[in-house]
Structure formats: structure tokens, C-alpha cells
């Protein structure tokens, strides 16, 4: 137990954040919607919904199915396209004093590079998340993060554009045989950090129609149901590459859940599905985490990162 002041700040590569809890890409739209419920300046950063080069309608409805302690979504990267996003959404967030991590998604290696070029031209962005693992696309072949070489090529294309001004964070899927192998491939290709984990591919069959319930048939499973998968993936990757910063996400709904991901090796934690069920989940989780870190005797977030890997204290 300690009453000492707590250093609640964290870093992802060369980006500094005053608090360790972030929105999760695809779970906060562009931030405006949540600003009715809390001050966006109070959280680590808004990670915006993965944006592509052009306007995109996404997948047909139904796009959602609640599952035990979780949900499936099948949005398919609906969005306004990068030009409108950078012209309208990012300036709004920056004007509100929010820190911004922009998430991009492409269909080709060239699209990732083009998106990175456009993001680089905008001042004030804290980091770039490269989402190479969205499961809700027509062809799962587009999931770059399923293979070492496609994952590395997408990141390499972005690295050639972004030369260290802002950290490049590669978002990976747990739906692979060995996530540490994909992680090392993208780090070798120039990723400064990793976002772990994207949703887990799933399906629900509707017993009225006797057919897959979602318009896109498959969807991404999120929520507390996948938290142990996230903890495992973060633990494995941190163990293999302890110096690579990890933005952890997957089913975090409380301060204790956030601390679990931090102890496994995450330097920051994104909250996604919990915000759907509770618009003030993020500030609540931050408060709970802050108390819990103090209660466990940690002087800073940094002291707790990867603590589960350390030799047991006698």
C-alpha cells in the first residue's frame, strides 16, 4: 500500500501520453460521439477508426450479434476515406486538445504507403496504427497479418514514408499459428510498436433462418470473452521482444483487466467493446487502474509493464 504519487504517463516508441488508457480503433468512431460523455483530453489518446483511401460502405446488415460476454461485429471498414477524415475529423480532435493515433487500413501494400504519405502531411498526430488484420473484408487474403512476408511488406511500405517522426504501430491478429513470428517480421520491417489483438474471427448461425446471422457471414469476436487470448498474445510477444512497446486490447472492461494486460507486457491499453456497453467506461477504467496500481505498490505505469515476466520476489 502506498500513498505516494503515481506516474500515470506512458510511452509508445517516441510518443508520450499522460495516461495509459486509449480508445480502440473501430470502437470510438472519430471521437466526437464519446465527447458528450467525457473530456477526450483526460484519456491517453483517441485511436480513430481504421480509414482507407476511398469512401467505403462496408458490409451489409445485420452487422452485429451479441455472444456470451462478447459480441461479433461485421462492419467491413465503413468510412469516409482518408482525405475527408484528415480534413475534418483530425482537426476537430486536435482542436479539442485530444491526442490522436490515426489507424489506417489498405487493400494493397501501395495503399498503405499512400495513406501513410497523407497522414505524414498532417501535423499534430501522435502515432500511426497500421491495421493489417481487419477480419471483415471480402477476401481474407487481404489480412496481411496472417503471413510474415505480407505483414512485413505492408509495414516496410509505410516505414519508407514515415522516417521516425511518429511511431508506427502494427495491429496484429491472434488468428495465426505463432503470433511472435508475425510480430518479429513486422518489427524487422520497421514497426516501432505493436497493437495486440484485433478481434478473433467467429460466426453465429441464426436458428430462425438456419443461416449465418451476419450479413458478412463471419465477424470479429470482441469483449471479455477474448481477454485471455489477448493476455496470452501480449505475454508471448513481450517475452520474445521485451523492448518493443505494445498497445494492448481485447475485452478490457475494468481497471483490473487493464492491469492484467499491462502486467503481461502492454505499455498502453485500448478499450473497445466496453465503451459500447458503457459510454464512460474509459474514464472509469482509468480511475480504477490508477487506484489499483497504487494499491499494488507501483510508483508508475512503466514499473508494472511486463511485471508478470519478472522473477518472483522472495
Amino acid at each position, binding site marked *: 500500500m502506498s500513498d505516494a504519487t503515481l506516474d500515470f504517463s506512458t510511452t509508445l516508441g517516441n510518443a508520450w501520453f499522460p495516461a495509459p488508457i486509449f480508445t480502440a480503433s*473501430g470502437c470510438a468512431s472519430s471521437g466526437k*460521439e464519446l465527447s458528450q460523455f467525457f473530456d477526450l483530453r483526460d484519456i491517453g489518446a483517441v485511436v480513430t477508426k481504421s480509414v482507407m483511401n476511398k469512401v467505403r460502405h462496408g458490409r451489409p*446488415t445485420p452487422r452485429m450479434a451479441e455472444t456470451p460476454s462478447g459480441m461479433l461485429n461485421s462492419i467491413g471498414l465503413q468510412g469516409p476515406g482518408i482525405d475527408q477524415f484528415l480534413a475534418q475529423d483530425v482537426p476537430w480532435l486536435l482542436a479539442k486538445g485530444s491526442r490522436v493515433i490515426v489507424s489506417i487500413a489498405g487493400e494493397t501494400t501501395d495503399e498503405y504507403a499512400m495513406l501513410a504519405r497523407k497522414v505524414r502531411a498532417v501535423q499534430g498526430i501522435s502515432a500511426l496504427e497500421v491495421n493489417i488484420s481487419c477480419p471483415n473484408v471480402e477476401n481474407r487474403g487481404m489480412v496481411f497479418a496472417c503471413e510474415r512476408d505480407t505483414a512485413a511488406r505492408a509495414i516496410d511500405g509505410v516505414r519508407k514514408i514515415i522516417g521516425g517522426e511518429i511511431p508506427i504501430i502494427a495491429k496484429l491478429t491472434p488468428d495465426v499459428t505463432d503470433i511472435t513470428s508475425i510480430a518479429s517480421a513486422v518489427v524487422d520491417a520497421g514497426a516501432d510498436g505493436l497493437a495486440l489483438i484485433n478481434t478473433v474471427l467467429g460466426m453465429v448461425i441464426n436458428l430462425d433462418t438456419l443461416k449465418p446471422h451476419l450479413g458478412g457471414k463471419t465477424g470479429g469476436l470482441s469483449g471479455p470473452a477474448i481477454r485471455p487470448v489477448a493476455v496470452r498474445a501480449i505475454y508471448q510477444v513481450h517475452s520474445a521482444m521485451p523492448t518493443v512497446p505494445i498497445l494492448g486490447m481485447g475485452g478490457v*472492461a475494468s481497471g483490473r483487466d487493464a492491469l492484467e494486460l499491462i502486467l503481461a507486457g502492454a505499455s498502453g491499453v485500448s478499450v473497445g467493446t466496453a465503451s459500447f456497453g458503457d*459510454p464512460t467506461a474509459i474514464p472509469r477504467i482509468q480511475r480504477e487502474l490508477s487506484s489499483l496500481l497504487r494499491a499494488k505498490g507501483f510508483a508508475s505505469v512503466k514499473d508494472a509493464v511486463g511485471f508478470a515476466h519478472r522473477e518472483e520476489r522472495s
Partner: protein
Amino acid sequence: MSSINKSAAQINATILSNKRVGAYHQILLAIGDLASVCRPGNFVAISVGGDSSRMVLRRAFAISRITHGSASGGAMELIVAPHGSGSKWLCAQEEGVELDIVAPLGKAFGIPTNAVNALLVGGGYGSAPLFGLAEVLKARGCRVDMLLGASTGAKIYAPLEGKRSASTLKIYTEDGTMGEHGRVTAPIRELITQGSVDVIYSCGPMSMLRAISELTEGTDVVHQCAVEESMACGIGICMTCVLPVKNEDGSISMLRSCIDGPVMDGAEVAWDLVGKVPPIGTP
């Protein structure tokens, strides 16, 4: 602050009463000052199942009516059909239980500035928000005619106090167990032809909303419909509840029924594209 849901707040609301009415539950919640910013057509998102629940998402319900009491402050009335696990849990909650609610959400029905002839059409428990709307329209001097329909009589929700706010009320059931035998949309064409309708307000199943939009097409009758699409968040961040809506240039946008609705212009919804992926750009 943004302009989206600018009156919304998350509060703990105590259940004042929970009564069974036919196939539904009428639930009254104490919401204090929040009552003054709720409008007909707005909805509420309620956390269900308690702390250890496996249900992670809120349930959205149309606000049926708002009352402004003096002692306990304002109250919100909901009409809930105990169909799924979340609504069954809600209907089982007793007086005195506190609920975590977020309200008022979404776009409300547009209220005309002058007295017009309004036709209110409700399907099943979709009739719930129409009674509060009828009171507001009547206060504006509008003539309010109401048509309610359901598959069977037990699924008609038409409280006595609500009936007073409408000039006329006709009920239709598909099995003929209450009111006229048939569908609620049956008399609408004739009412439009007679010129006795300026605005139609509707709430109910999507097939009913679509049918009314087809009847008003090419006429001067405005059709404001409250749509129903499954949503995870209710506040505009999950993108699951989208509907194809026509823009002026003929292109289609996928709009969120939670923040760009639930009340939409029936003439603007591309009903034939619901559940499909529309093409990008202008035709």
C-alpha cells in the same frame, strides 16, 4: 462538446413501477431533470443483467412518454416486450431497483410549427412513442388520427389515457381478434387520396415503414418514421445500425440509425437496399 446527442446523460434511474399490460410491460423510471430534454422519438439505452452478466451490450427502447411530476421529478415510461434475454431481465426487475440508463438518444420526431393533420401509425409495441407524440401534436393544435396494428389483439398497446390524445383511433389485427381484420396500412391510401393527411408519423416493423413510404411516394405527404435496426452501442460509435439513405445527388450514404435516426424521412431511406451494400458514388 459535440452536437451529437447533446442533451444525453448517463444516470441511475429508479424503477417507480413495473406493470404487465397485455403482452408488454409498462415500466416507469424516475429520471429527474432529464425529463425536460426528452422528446417524442428519442430512445434510452439501458444496461441489463447486473454486474456479473454475460450480456455486455445495452438494450435500446423508444421512450414511450415523459411525465413531469412535482414530488419525484420527471419520469420516463417504457413499453417493453419480454422477448430476448435482456428485455426479459428488465421486465423481471421490481419497483425500487436502480437502472444504469443513457438518455435521451437519437433524433426526435419533427414537430410542425403550425397546425396540420397528422396520422400516427404504430405496429406492435411501436405504438408506444406515438401516445407521447400525440399529446405534443395536440398541444400544437394538430388534428391527430391514430392507426394501430398487430398480429393479434394481445399485442396491441393502446392505454386508455393515450386514447384521449388522439381525435380518432382505429385498431387492426391480422387475426381479427381486436378491431378490424387486416393490416394497419390498409386504410392509408384512401386517407392520402382524400387529402386528409399532411404528415404521417410511424413506428413499428421495417416492413410496415417501407409499405407506408411506398404509399406516400409521389404525394405531398411527409413520412417521418422511427426505424429499428439492431445496434450495439446506441451512441454512434459501433457502426452496426446503418441504413442506406439517399443523398440529393442520388448517391447513397450508410447512416447510423442511432444518431442520424431513429426518426428518418421515409422518402430518403433506400428501402430496397436495406441489408445490401449500395454502390459508391452517383448513379
